[in-house]
């Protein structure tokens, strides 16, 4: 189903310099009971954001110094369960890009399917980004899908990988099902032969 087209994003970023952030932290299991895709943002990082009696904790998403559509996180982001709700929660909260030096496989796929772009940078560039945000929380980061670059306000930049197929999808705002539905006849033929 057609989603927003995404070519260039300029935004400040939220730093989360923690490694191995698993999907149970991104969205705890008890919030997986919804039957629609909306409303997950409220519970993004719920247990890090709030105490059991709903008092805000000292966590970056509760800190008004930091804001933006980009989340910058430590290595191995999104490990753990395959729940796509993690991607929905990030998307619903307003993140369009997550930057890390390594992503768990399934999370990466889920994110891309939900218009959240995982950008893999080198460990050293990741540290540079953290340093820049620390110096100036409002510093602007530019993610350019067409040219596959991520650039900092100080001019430093790195290129990132994105496969040709996903790039076309993101830039045109269409999804996997739009593509698969276009192959309907070939698939029917295959099913008949192989059943």
């Amino acid at each position: 189903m057609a989603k927003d087209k995404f070519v260039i994003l300029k935004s400040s970023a939220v730093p989360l310099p923690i490694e191995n952030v698993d999907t149970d932290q991104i969205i705890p299991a008890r919030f997986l009971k919804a039957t629609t895709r909306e409303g997950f943002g409220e519970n993004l990082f719920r247990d890090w954001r709030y105490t059991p009696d709903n008092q805000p904790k000292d966590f970056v998403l509760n800190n008004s110094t930091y804001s933006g559509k980009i989340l910058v996180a430590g290595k191995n982001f999104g490990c753990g369960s395959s729940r796509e709700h993690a991607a929905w929660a990030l998307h619903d909260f307003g993140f369009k890009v997550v930057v890390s030096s390594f992503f768990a496989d399934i999370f990466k796929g889920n994110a891309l399917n939900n218009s959240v772009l995982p950008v893999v940078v080198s460990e050293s560039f990741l540290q540079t980004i953290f340093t820049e945000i620390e110096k100036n929380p409002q510093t602007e980061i530019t993610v350019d899908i067409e040219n596959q670059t991520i650039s900092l306000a100080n001019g430093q930049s790195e290129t990132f990988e994105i496969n040709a197929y996903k790039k076309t999808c993101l830039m045109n705002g269409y999804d996997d099902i739009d593509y698969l539905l276009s192959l309907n006849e070939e698939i029917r033929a295959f099913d008949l032969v192989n059943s």
Partner: protein
Amino acid sequence: MMANKPKTLFDKIWDKHVVKSQVGYPDVIFIDRHFIHEVTSPQAFDGLRKRGIQVFNRQRTTATADHNVPTKDQHLPIKEALSRHQVETLRKNCQEFGLELYDLGHPFQGIVHIIGPELGLTLPGMTIVCGDSHTSTHGAFGNIAFGIGTSEVEQVLATQCILQYKPKRMKIEINGKLGKGVVSKDIILYIISKISASGATGYFVEYAGDTIRNLSMEARMTICNMSIEMGARGGLIAPDETTFAYIKGRKFAPQGADFERLVEEWKALKTDEDAEFDRVLTFQAEDIAPMITYGTNPGMGIKITDRIPTQAELQDISEQNSLTKSLAYMGLEAGLPLLGKAIDYVFIGSCTNARIEDLRLVADFVKGKQKAENVEVWVIPGSKQVEKQAIAEGLDKIFAEAGFELRSPGCSACLGMNEDKVPAGKYCVSTSNRNFEGRQGPQSRTFLASPLTAAVAAITGKVGDVREFI
């Protein structure tokens, strides 16, 4: 010639299911069998409705309710409003789209990865997906089975295909004879402790070696189940006589001459002799001991008699950081042993270890014994059929006499989603697959272990070495 290039089992199955392959695009893979449950399917059905389309091939999808069903009083309406809503939504969706549902109370209901194999829906050579990461369980039958996200569930419902890039292949070979008290759960916890919770990321694993060959289907499923806990997309084991014997006569398995013909085909499902893997790891069964985890990812495991590692013993700075964080959460100290640690709960269940063989193993050990006074013990069969079998064999009586609570099938305390939760701060020895923070309930503390080690904990109230009792 390309055609003669030796292939791995994984490649053989994959290649046979490619509908379309185009440079720069992911492969379009045909899916033979699709399992769905109440948690990851509602949004997919919503998507179909929004697009105004039907399910592509209804025969290929099977549904059950497992994740957030209660394990007590299953005949009554579900108390918790959101869980009830999800299960009702699944009912409604299956009816509207004409899909088979093994609902609460149905004799085939159970954890999705337990019912597929026991009903003969899971067969060698297939491609199998489900919106749940432990779909890798089915790989024990020599097929490609892996977990998918809800968008992909929608893809499969809509087109019976998903888009995939071929993962890298890893072979893990285990040879030798397992020691006393060491079972398949220990094998997989041992491997993950050696290669870490991300050690197989990007790979699809084939398990091989004579140790694996000598395992039952149930034990093989336990191993494949936890492939995902080392980051792998999935794991598989080439089918053999053990596999065929397990499948024979199962409810939906091919019968008679059809079955015999398929067995001949299935025999070809193995990796060619000189096929190349991207990575090969070898382990010796004699090196494996009963295992237990101390931290908050399944890679943080030790032999039951070992001490928790100290900062200095860990190489990696990120491992050191997670050690500190994990131990703080777990209320444990680096450098100390876990043996003798008092525990509060024992959970015997989940798609890792809730098959009949697991229940028998536990019953065998606890027969004539009593649980420790301050421990609560839950035994949750993986399916209605397992429950029925357990009762037919009189295991229910053994559990009752020991003071264990045998409940009805479901995911239960494997994840803190239904009514079965481990309370904050409490320690639980669990036969499930994940020890993440809050997995069994907010602030709950999980020690992953085999059913035997769990049985020891139930009887003694402590972390103990099963070898001292058998």
